[in-house]
């Protein structure tokens, strides 16, 4: 008869992103050994781990939203420009236009509007999600540049201070707590709710989804709105940390986000993947860049190695899927 629980090992390796997790552990071990010799730095310390989390928060937050979009088989290339637009607007709301702490809800509102625009175009008019979000990316990026010209973009309010430098229980920085909260919410949404499970169905087989009574248009539009909200939260966290915004802050960050999601085992074709996998993905990138600075590698080596690792991870994923039957 059917066993209920798989063996824990088989369960672990069936999780998306498990291969990358092992690679991450190996990488951390290597750097922890090599770093003291090269630069004398201690890599694997609590403060450094927290630091990696802190630096990756805004990529991680957007990656959660992007995971749901990709699970439905679509993509959102406009997150970079959305992040830029919302960081700039948040600074304007709080400072130049004098809304103070009201800037936060207003930024979330902008996030919902951008998400809705993408959602209506992609699922409403059924346009190709790649080209449409490329178009909206140009539009949002242009708006950020046009809106900002001539204003100093400071964001100095008590609330921003708390978000930027506050610590919870003296151990974990506030932005990291926000990141963990967003991860928990989206992991719950994807894994434990009807809406989330339906996203997998839409991504795996949109025709069959229709036969099980899923109106996929509504679900896909919601994922884009959620993605917009993630960009807003990320913008607030980014602004709180850097206290100043400029209209190129999100430049081509969408590539890092997509990289994190795909490294986490989410398939670009849809129907496969998890938010936890994405967490591993963006941690991998965070520890990678932190590790590289420990080994005094510079920016260009990181990009080249990151590109190669992505190709290898994808090839391995394809090979295991072919061998795994489906």
């Amino acid at each position, binding site marked *: 008869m059917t066993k209920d629980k798989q063996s824990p090992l088989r369960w672990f390796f069936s999780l998306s992103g498990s291969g990358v997790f092992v690679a991450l552990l190996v990488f951390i071990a290597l750097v922890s050994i090599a770093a003291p010799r090269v630069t004398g730095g201690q890599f694997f310390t609590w403060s450094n781990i927290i630091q990696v989390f802190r630096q990756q928060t805004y990529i991680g937050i957007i990656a959660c939203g992007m995971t749901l979009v990709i699970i439905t088989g679509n993509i959102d290339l406009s997150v970079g420009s959305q992040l830029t637009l919302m960081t700039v607007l948040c600074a304007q709301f709080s400072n130049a236009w004098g809304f103070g702490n009201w800037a936060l809800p207003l930024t979330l509102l902008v996030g919902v509007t951008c998400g809705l625009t993408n959602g209506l175009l992609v699922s409403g*008019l*059924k346009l190709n999600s790649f080209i449409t979000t490329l178009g909206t990316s*140009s539009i949002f990026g242009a708006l950020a540049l046009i809106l900002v*010209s001539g204003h100093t973009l400071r964001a100095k309010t008590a609330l921003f201070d708390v978000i930027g430098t506050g610590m919870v229980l003296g151990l974990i920085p506030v932005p990291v707590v926000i990141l963990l909260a967003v991860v928990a919410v989206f992991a719950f949404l994807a894994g434990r709710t009807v809406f989330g499970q339906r996203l997998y169905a839409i991504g795996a087989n949109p025709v069959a989804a229709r036969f099980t009574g899923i109106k996929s248009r509504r679900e896909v539009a919601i994922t884009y709105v959620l993605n917009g909200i993630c960009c807003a939260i990320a913008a607030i966290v980014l602004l709180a940390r850097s206290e100043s915004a400029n209209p190129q802050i999100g430049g081509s960050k969408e*590539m890092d986000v997509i*990289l994190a999601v795909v490294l986490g085992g989410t398939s670009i074709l849809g129907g496969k993947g998890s938010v936890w996998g994405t967490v591993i993905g963006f941690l991998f990138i965070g520890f990678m860049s932190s590790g590289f600075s420990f080994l005094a590698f510079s920016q*260009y080596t990181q990009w080249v190695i990151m*590109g190669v690792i992505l190709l290898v991870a994808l*090839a391995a994923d394809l090979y295991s899927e072919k061998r795994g039957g489906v």
Partner: protein
Amino acid sequence: MMRAVKDTAAKVDAAGKETGAAGWSGGAQKGAAALGGAAAQKGFGRAVRDFLFSYNSAVIFAALLVFATFFVNKFSRNYSTVIFDASIYGCIAIGLSLVMVTGNIDLSVGFQAALGAVVVVQVSKLTGSLPLGVICGLAAGAVCGALNGAVVTRVGISPLIATIASNYIFKGIVYYFTKNGSIYPEGELREALKNSISKLWLGGFKALALTVVIVAVVLATLAFIMRNTDFGNNFYIAGDNAEAGKLAGINIPRAQFFAYVLCGLLCGLAGVFLASNSGAAVYTQGEGRDVFAISACVIGGIKMAGGKGTMLNVLIGILIMRIISTGMNLMLLPSAWVDFVSGVLLIVVLVIDKVTSVKTEDA
């Protein structure tokens, strides 16, 4: 190049008459009725509308040209600049269009071109000979294209993610060389590089610069190859219905692979033009060129799903983008407006394409 513009008008009318001819539509069909052939007799209004739709990119081009000429001051004096700048960046879009026709995409074209420029400069610096530098630049482009082609067609990784990965690799290599500012060969070699291709103007007309002539030749040869050789025709079949192609014994992956190689080669050529035009290779030559190329292709009329779009479409797309950019400059508007208008146009073209898509719903 003005000849090309007249050509479009001539060809457009001829084709317009063609599709209007009668064709009898089938009777009852399973599932949604396929788009029946044009009704035998066609009202003039309907014929114009159909013509407008099937050639919407040409219409947008004509509208922009007319608008810019009358409403933007001194635009009419800048036709040659538009054409010259189009030739500098055009090759990237032409290369990308080949890949898109076979149903794939390439997000790394921007930095393939920048890599080409870097190789031209580095090789001519090391060997002291400019021609060798140019050849190596083209070769570097072809190698990048081959890498993308192999990863997509042999390993089977989806084109979007594969080229995001390769974009990181090329960006890293370009940044390694140009992180301390622009790189350029020394002394008279730099003069040679600067005055090589982009400054040789036939008969002194900027519109007839060597780069423009080369691009015109490239466009003509590719159009010829795509139309008249099996090698080129297979690009369309690979994009339109790969299954039908396979059944007819066509090696589809091979066609898609060569599309990537040709795209890389043309990006290398664009790199050579960039290096010669500014006499140096610099990091920003790579930034943002892929969005320009994709927009030019899609607005020009290359279908994202593949199988449709000629060199004429690419030419129109590139000219549209250049008219917008140069027009904005002459109107002293911030460059952000260029992104805004091209973003809006991209979505408008998608909507029109959706409304008039010829593809029958699969039964």
